[in-house]
């Protein structure tokens, strides 16, 4: 990501961003992009408003236009109330939003956004607020490249996902394509006895002996689930509970990668 944003040089290979080569045309690339890292790139002791005005001035707006632009962005990112507070008093989510806003000050707005793990360390509410911001950006026609370790996030936001394993792309496609690589749905059954568990184990695609849980493939329809339950447990004594779950990107990820601790999925 730092290579694409022209902040680091590639060992080999070439890349083009918004039609410009990242090495030969780095100025043009820098004017076309906005970069937001996981460490907020704002001045902590300046207020939100001062940060945005400074960035606007640096990207070439006059003093008056910079002030107006800062106000617009504060409204758009829901930071009006906090505009005159120092950024160090902001919550994680507010800081990230201020950071994103700071990347938007130039005009025209950049068409390409690089968001490097933008929701790492945020609480669920802030994460959802940030997702909405990303959807808005994409809705305005911008291209967003986002790295994340949260696969649910990739599923929610991405049109296209690249799964990286040890620095290599191991899979690429829409969330649906990726999910179709593992079975679509699964009926998880919690069985009442060890005998029942052993009897049905051969039909299952997912096993969890310690909780006596088995996962059987299904298409997710009520008709199929009902038929399946009747078939495998005609006396209605063997199954305590059941749940239907859709395959998640977590399943895809686990199927695709070997032992990994960190694996950003690219949107």
């Amino acid at each position, binding site marked *: 990501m730092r290579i694409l944003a022209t902040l680091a040089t590639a060992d080999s290979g070439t890349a083009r961003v918004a039609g410009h080569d990242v090495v030969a045309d780095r100025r043009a690339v820098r004017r076309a992009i906005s970069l937001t890292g996981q460490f907020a790139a704002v001045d902590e002791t300046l207020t939100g408003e001062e940060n945005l005005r400074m960035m606007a001035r640096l*990207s070439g707006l006059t003093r008056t236009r910079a002030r107006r632009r800062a106000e617009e962005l504060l409204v758009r990112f829901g930071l009006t109330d906090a505009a005159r507070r120092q950024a160090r008093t902001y919550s994680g989510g507010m800081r990230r939003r201020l950071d994103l806003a700071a990347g938007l000050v130039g005009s025209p707005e950049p068409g390409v956004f690089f968001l490097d793990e933008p929701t790492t360390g945020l609480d669920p509410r802030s994460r959802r607020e940030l997702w909405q911001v990303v959807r808005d950006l994409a809705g305005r026609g911008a291209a967003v490249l986002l790295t994340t370790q949260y696969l649910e996030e990739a599923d929610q936001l991405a049109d296209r996902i690249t799964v990286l394993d040890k620095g290599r792309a191991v899979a690429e496609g829409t969330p649906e394509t990726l999910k179709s690589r593992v079975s679509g749905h699964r009926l998880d059954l919690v069985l009442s006895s060890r005998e029942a568990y052993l009897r049905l184990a051969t039909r299952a695609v997912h096993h969890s002996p310690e909780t006596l849980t088995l996962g059987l493939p299904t298409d997710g329809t009520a008709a199929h689930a009902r038929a399946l339950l009747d078939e495998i447990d005609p006396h209605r004594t063997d199954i305590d509970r059941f749940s239907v779950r859709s395959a998640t990107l977590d399943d895809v990820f686990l199927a695709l990668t070997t032992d990994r601790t960190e694996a950003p999925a690219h949107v």
Partner: protein
Amino acid sequence: MSDAPGALTHATVMTGRSLLLSRRNIDAVITSMMLPIMLMLIFVYFFGGAIDTGTAYDSYVMYVVPGVLFLCAGFGSATTAVAVSEDMKGGIIDRFRSLDIGAMPILAGHVVASTVRNLVSTTLVFAVALLIGFRPAATPAGWLAVTAVLLAYIVALSWISAAIGLLARTPEAAGGFTFFMSFLPYPSSAFVPVDSMPGWLHGFADHQPVTPAIESLRGLLLDQPVGNAPWTALAWAAGILTVAVALSGVLFRVRTR
């Protein structure tokens, strides 16, 4: 479409930013301003009586003021180095670079803010010195020369501090590195005459960059003959500045690779 702003616009905005940051960190700034004043009081009232500066000076305070001005610049440089280092540590440097702002406008902003801080602290030192019996006798041309020499050294030392800020891996280390600048006035004629030092130190004390500056400031302030000292001092300052600018350019490229 906004016009691509030039380096001058960038430097102006960066200066405004650095000054604003200083105002927000006013505690640290005041501390760095109070230290030289305390040291001046210590030197004048505790040590001064025991130091023989010869017959040319009515009192020790007349002798020591230029040295204290240099202590000021030394303490001020710590603030500058830390500020530069903080920038390099945080994500903000990537933001600036992605806005296509070069090393020089960023550092120039810090240096100008540092110079402003130093001018404030220098004025404070002068004010306190006047209160405790400093009576300068400089001519108008002398004052002009004093200002030129001081300004040249403040800018040169500020830029060295900025380079140190780039060199140090952490802000704490950056603050520590600048201590050699606060110590440089001691082995010079700033506080005691060089003649009173051991012989092996004379060579260094006579030819280090602080000495010609101290000699010219002292001579000019008391309206005594200074010879070539101001020119030597300005040459040193220009040399230091040139090296500092070149060095910081290289360091910036290394740090942001």
